[in-house]
């Protein structure tokens, strides 16, 4: 019997496939059976209403998209009153995602969202579209450490820190988040990017710059997961550019325990289900009994390091 389940700290998921925050809502239940997902990840919520950024909020680019949504939210109270019960009609664990104005607000958000029904708190310290310039708490190890420490002080629920691929030294930020008590790391949010319309000479996005996601970013984020997995011992959730079952396997080999999927839901709303089916097929064909065994199974330990010897070998 194939076992697709994975464990992220104390949380058991029926399979490693989750949607990425902001690319999913229960509205997907109009197209797919969302009870089949490993977990449900809600859109990032802030304390107060936010309108988000001026349109256009998304642009198609080679290999994916750039977005500058700007974290619109109806606020925390609406999340607790309306969205939480809506999510709890479904069986997978709920991952709530929070953002905040400053460190104090983050701490208060963690306290206020520490309610029954929320199974995991993902802290979105990495949104590049919240501030016009793209800045965020996950760019520096000490800021990330501070936020995770404060959130940790407020809750016993699992905390997943969502990191930014725009950090100069993402491994340092990852180590800081682990040190501060994060139960897992989500790697990563979107990569700062831009598109200019050459007919109008105008930026394609109302916010001028935005965050890129989609298949083109996968090799970049995969490399980050690989490097971070060598440096931390908490589980990693790979997130960036996944569009098929092999991409999930690749992230797991690099060190991820599970994945989150964003962009491809827009292109193929049935993708997450096809990917779960694809993982089953893939494991069955390879005779793999437990998908969790793939985590960190990349065969990089015995590679020839002598260039001349390697260049003399078959590949």
């Amino acid at each position, binding site marked *: 019997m194939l076992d697709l389940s994975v464990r992220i700290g104390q949380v058991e998921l029926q399979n490693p496939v989750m949607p990425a925050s902001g690319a999913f809502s229960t*509205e997907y239940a109009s197209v797919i059976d969302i009870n089949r997902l490993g977990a449900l990840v809600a859109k990032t919520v802030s304390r107060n209403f936010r309108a988000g950024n001026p349109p256009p909020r998304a642009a198609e680019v*080679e290999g994916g998209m750039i977005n500058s949504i700007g974290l619109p939210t109806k606020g925390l109270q609406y999340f607790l009153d309306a969205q939480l019960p809506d999510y709890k009609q479904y069986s997978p664990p709920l991952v709530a995602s929070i953002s905040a104005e400053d460190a104090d607000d983050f701490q208060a958000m963690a306290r206020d969202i520490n309610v029954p029904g929320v199974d995991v708190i993902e802290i979105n310290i990495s949104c590049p579209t919240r501030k016009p310039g793209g800045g965020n708490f996950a760019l520096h190890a000490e800021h990330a450490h501070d936020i995770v420490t404060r959130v940790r002080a407020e809750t016993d629920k699992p905390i997943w820190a969502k990191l930014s691929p725009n950090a100069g030294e993402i491994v340092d930020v990852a180590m800081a988040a682990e040190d501060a008590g994060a139960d897992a790391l989500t790697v990563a949010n979107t990569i700062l990017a831009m598109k200019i319309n050459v007919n109008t000479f105008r930026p394609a996005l109302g916010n001028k710059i935005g965050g890129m996601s989609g298949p083109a970013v996968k090799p970049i984020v995969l490399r980050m997961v690989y490097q971070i997995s060598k440096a931390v011992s908490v589980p990693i959730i790979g997130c960036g550019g996944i569009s098929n079952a092999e991409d999930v396997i690749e992230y797991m080999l690099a060190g991820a325990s599970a994945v989150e999927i964003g962009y491809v839901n827009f*292109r193929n709303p*049935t993708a997450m*289900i096809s990917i779960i089916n694809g993982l089953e097929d893939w494991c069955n064909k390879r005779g793999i009994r437990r998908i969790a065994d793939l985590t960190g199974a990349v065969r990089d330990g015995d590679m020839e390091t002598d260039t001349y010897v390697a260049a003399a070998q078959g590949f």
Partner: protein
Amino acid sequence: MQDFHYASQPFVVGRSTDTDFPACTTVEETLTTVLSHEWVNDEYKHMVVTASPKALTVKPGQFFHILCPSSDEGDLWFRRPQSVYAIDREGGRLEFLYKCVGRGTHGLATLKPGENCNILGPLGIGFTVDSAWKNIVVLGRGVGLATLAPISQMAGDAGVGVTAILSARNKEYLLSHERFEKIGASIVPVTDDDGSSDIQNVERILLELIAAARADAFYTCGSNRLFQVMKRLGAQHGIPGQIAMEQIMACGLGPCYVCVKTFEVNGERVLRRVCVEGPVFDIQEAVGC
């Protein structure tokens, strides 16, 4: 082991079997087959496709999010929204009428009869027609005429009379008139080349219809200027109205908040998502299209 089954076809993930679509879902990502695909003039193409029973539940004003093939060596990464132009429930077909403007629509135009097209839908909230109404007025321009065309089907079924004011650059781009002719609508073509599409002239026509008590409701799509006139006259004369809006979309389903437009409700400005809260909205709440 050489097994590149998935990796070599990264995007066939949408080609799911029926088991992936639980009966309770209302929206389907499906592969349709193109039955015919003809140019109607040098800019617009008319596409007829097969449709599944779920796709055929589409109502006028609703849309499908189409995964267009590319017309060049590259790939497309967003779907393109297209409203349904005609619904043939008995024949199991859907029709689209679209303008070729950019990579997506030019790519769509390359599809030949017999080829597959991946469509997601039906999506959004469509038009409504009240059978208590005697006469409604449809005012559209450009691609908006494609979106308004299926109102003829609804009005025909409800026994409601239609005046269709169709605006275009010249006669060649006057779309959808056959669709309205079929139900015996009174058609008022207005064009740029003879100046009849002039905004004052359109306003005059609308005022005449109001005076003749032939305007129980307004419908518009495709031009901000025409919309503004209809909104103003609708407010002045207490005529309800519906507008179909457009906005760049990513998901088409509601979660991404890419497709927002500004509306004014009880004096307060709010943002609404065109894909799930529209594309058809109350004309008096719309601010600009």
